[in-house]
């Protein structure tokens, strides 16, 4: 293959277990975000906008939806003769077969892919962050520092610093120490999980790491600390834009709400840094004669006949007349029937909420057997994709309703195996 100076590897194999039922059947990077997008649109669009033309997407957990979403990369202008997107799942070989054991092992297993481009620099990106970043600036800083590894860092509030991997640097910005979740952080520069490596150095480090039976084969836990210890030139690159790890229900909900309440943070309307997404090929969205809509984002094919307040509406969503949706996220294909009242809800793809269903944080007489406070906080209720929540069901906040509940409580919940769009009853 023709040479590419920089190639990007997006780690998209994680389960995202803290998103519960939302990632039961899809990998976290394929989770819908911000009305029009999937989470992976952000790193993919960042690559396109940074001029990076060869992108490997490492998949492992539930890859079908992600694979079909990315396709040949056309939606991101990444369908190219030289380079483009490559979906890289784990594979069998004569010397054994392994799932990706860790982030570093995933890259290790794809050394031949990276070698085929003979790159100078390799970017390791995470497929589950919401941010806009010019990776070229990071590579430039890597080159100017004559670094062998560069780690993107972001300033976090001091009181939260102990939740992150903290980089301690000397006065030149060179990393002297990496502390994973330190009890008493020495500074507040947290690793974003975005790395730039000189390929020669990374290649050697990956081979060393693979040979170490005690290693978890993880970049943050093993490879980077190992490189610092071995005296490699590891530098930080400070990023000061919007960045959000949407790994939990609360952070996913918050990040979506920020699009409405503080649109300048991620600024999706900035045409100099467009976030691309796959086009659902549907008509414009429609607001009916009796619709009441405010502080709402909405996209193709959706039809609002009822009320939406402070809500993210994805494509192909229907909100019937008499339904009231507030502070919620309606994922693609969800359908809210008349009389339903949803507050602080995340409704999964193609799920139908039947008439007079109520799901609000303090719902009186609401069913509480779906409450899952381990994953759901702040009164947010999550409905898995492909469910029918039956007429009149009342649910209290912090609930997480999945396919397994359809088996236990068929009087309230039904699972629909295949997506079939239902007609709008007018």
């Amino acid at each position, binding site marked *: 293959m023709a040479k590419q100076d920089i190639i990007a590897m997006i780690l998209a194999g994680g389960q995202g277990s803290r998103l519960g039922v939302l990632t039961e059947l899809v990998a976290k990077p394929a989770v819908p975000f911000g009305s*029009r997008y999937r989470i992976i649109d952000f790193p993919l669009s960042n690559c396109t906008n940074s001029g990076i033309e060869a992108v490997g997407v490492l998949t492992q957990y539930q890859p079908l939806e992600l694979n079909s979403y990315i396709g040949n990369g056309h939606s991101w202008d990444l369908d190219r003769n030289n380079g483009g997107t490559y979906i890289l799942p784990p594979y069998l070989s004569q010397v054994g077969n392994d799932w990706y054991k860790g982030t570093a092992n995933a890259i290790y297993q794809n050394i031949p892919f990276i070698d085929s481009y003979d790159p100078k620099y390799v970017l390791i990106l995470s497929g589950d962050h919401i941010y806009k970043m010019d990776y070229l600036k990071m590579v430039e800083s890597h080159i100017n520092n004559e670094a062998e590894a560069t780690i993107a860092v972001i300033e976090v509030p001091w009181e939260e610093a102990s939740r992150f991997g903290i980089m301690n640097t000397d006065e030149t910005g060179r990393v002297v120490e990496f502390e994973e979740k330190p009890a008493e952080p020495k500074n507040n520069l947290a690793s974003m999980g975005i790395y730039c490596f000189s390929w020669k150095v990374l290649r050697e480090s990956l081979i060393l790491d693979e040979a170490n039976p005690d290693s978890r084969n993880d970049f943050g836990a093993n490879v980077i600390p190992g490189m610092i210890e071995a005296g490699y030139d590891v530098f930080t690159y400070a990023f000061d834009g919007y960045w959000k790890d949407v790994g939990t229900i609360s952070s996913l909900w918050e990040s979506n709400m920020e699009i409405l309440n503080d*649109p300048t943070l991620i600024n999706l*309307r900035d045409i100099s840094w467009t976030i691309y997404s796959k086009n659902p090929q549907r*008509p414009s969205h429609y607001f*009916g004669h009796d619709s009441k809509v*405010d502080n709402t984002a909405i*996209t193709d094919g959706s039809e609002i006949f009822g009320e939406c307040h402070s809500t993210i509406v994805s494509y192909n969503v229907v909100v019937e007349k008499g339904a009231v949706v507030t502070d919620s996220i309606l994922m693609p294909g969800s359908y809210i029937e008349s009389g339903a009242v949803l507050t602080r809800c995340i409704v999964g793809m193609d799920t139908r909420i039947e008439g007079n269903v109520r799901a609000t944080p303090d719902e009186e007489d609401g069913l509480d057997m779906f409450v899952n406070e381990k994953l759901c906080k702040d009164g947010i209720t999550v409905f898995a994709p492909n469910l029918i929540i039956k007429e009149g069901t009342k649910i209290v906040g912090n609930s997480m309703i999945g396919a397994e509940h359809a088996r236990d409580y068929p009087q309230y919940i039904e699972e629909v195996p295949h997506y079939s*769009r239902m007609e709008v009853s007018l």
Partner: protein
Amino acid sequence: MITDAMGLILADNRRIQLGVLTEPRAIAAIPFAGRFRIIDFTLSNMVNSGIKRVGVVALTKYKSLMDHMGTGAPWDLDRMRQGLYMIPPYINPITREPDRTDAQGVIDYVKTGDQRYVVISGSAFVTNTSYKPVINAHIESNADLTVLYHKDGQFDGPLAMAIELDDDGYVRDLMVDYPRSTSQKYVVGLIVISRNLLLQLLTEMMARGIADFSILGILENYKRFRVQAVELEEPLLRIHSVASYFDASMQVLDTKIRHKLFSIDRPIYTKAKNRAPCIVAPGSGVVKNVLASDGCAIMGHVENSILFRGCVIGRGARVTNSVLFQDVQISEGVVLDHVIIDKNSVVKMDGRLLGQPGFPIVIEKNAIV
């Protein structure tokens, strides 16, 4: 089954003009229904009917059409075999004018295909239907030509072609712009013809120096040939004047018609623009009976209107019964009623534009009001 037909779209028609809307573009390239152009409908119908080779015949103003079509990728027509063929006019080297009598581009396109039939579509209508039944009806009959008609009683536009049929469903009379037709059967601009017969007609046309290659030009031969007529039962929106464009746009607001026009089984494809989702701002006015698109920001009051991608409606503005093309900006306090505003235009603070039902005000592209 494999569809043994190629498509040929006549993207423009000298006799159908929509004022400033067709000044910069062919009829087929007129924006429609928020995020589409008229050509998207017949093109998607062709693709959804299994047609894999489509030629688009342009006259003079083909820049916006070419921009829109690109490689044909949105319609899956970017293919190594077959695919999309743009057929712009040949320029006469002496007069530097498009050569009106030169159908050579069309002849070359038709000749090089290996399909037995050609589906020819005009661009003055919008519908969502499969062309397969018409193609099959043509193949199964002894007809030389098969034409689609609709019983919409449409006769007010230019080139309204009323047909009378004999007992076998063949055309025995064709009348243009004749409002007193009792049959109420009006031609939709869609014909199925065998490739060989089309080549013969095109060659005759060139030999006689006939200027316009049009649906009417072909149908005028109805006495020489057996012309079969097949009814289109899906909703049909005709676009042949500013008033009919406005009326057709308003019909898309009707949810029943819109669901027919954008059926899930037969998607209408168009070029993607990757705009941000539409935002209805906190404390905006009433937004009702509105078709809006990505990239819009609605802060004012909008009713019975269509907003194309990227429109901005300022706080306190009042937009009713209007169609605003891509990236139109309506400033604070503006009042619009019965207005069509073309791309990138701006209506400045407190402007008032009030058209009348049946006579919308039309503002040109890139205007500042």
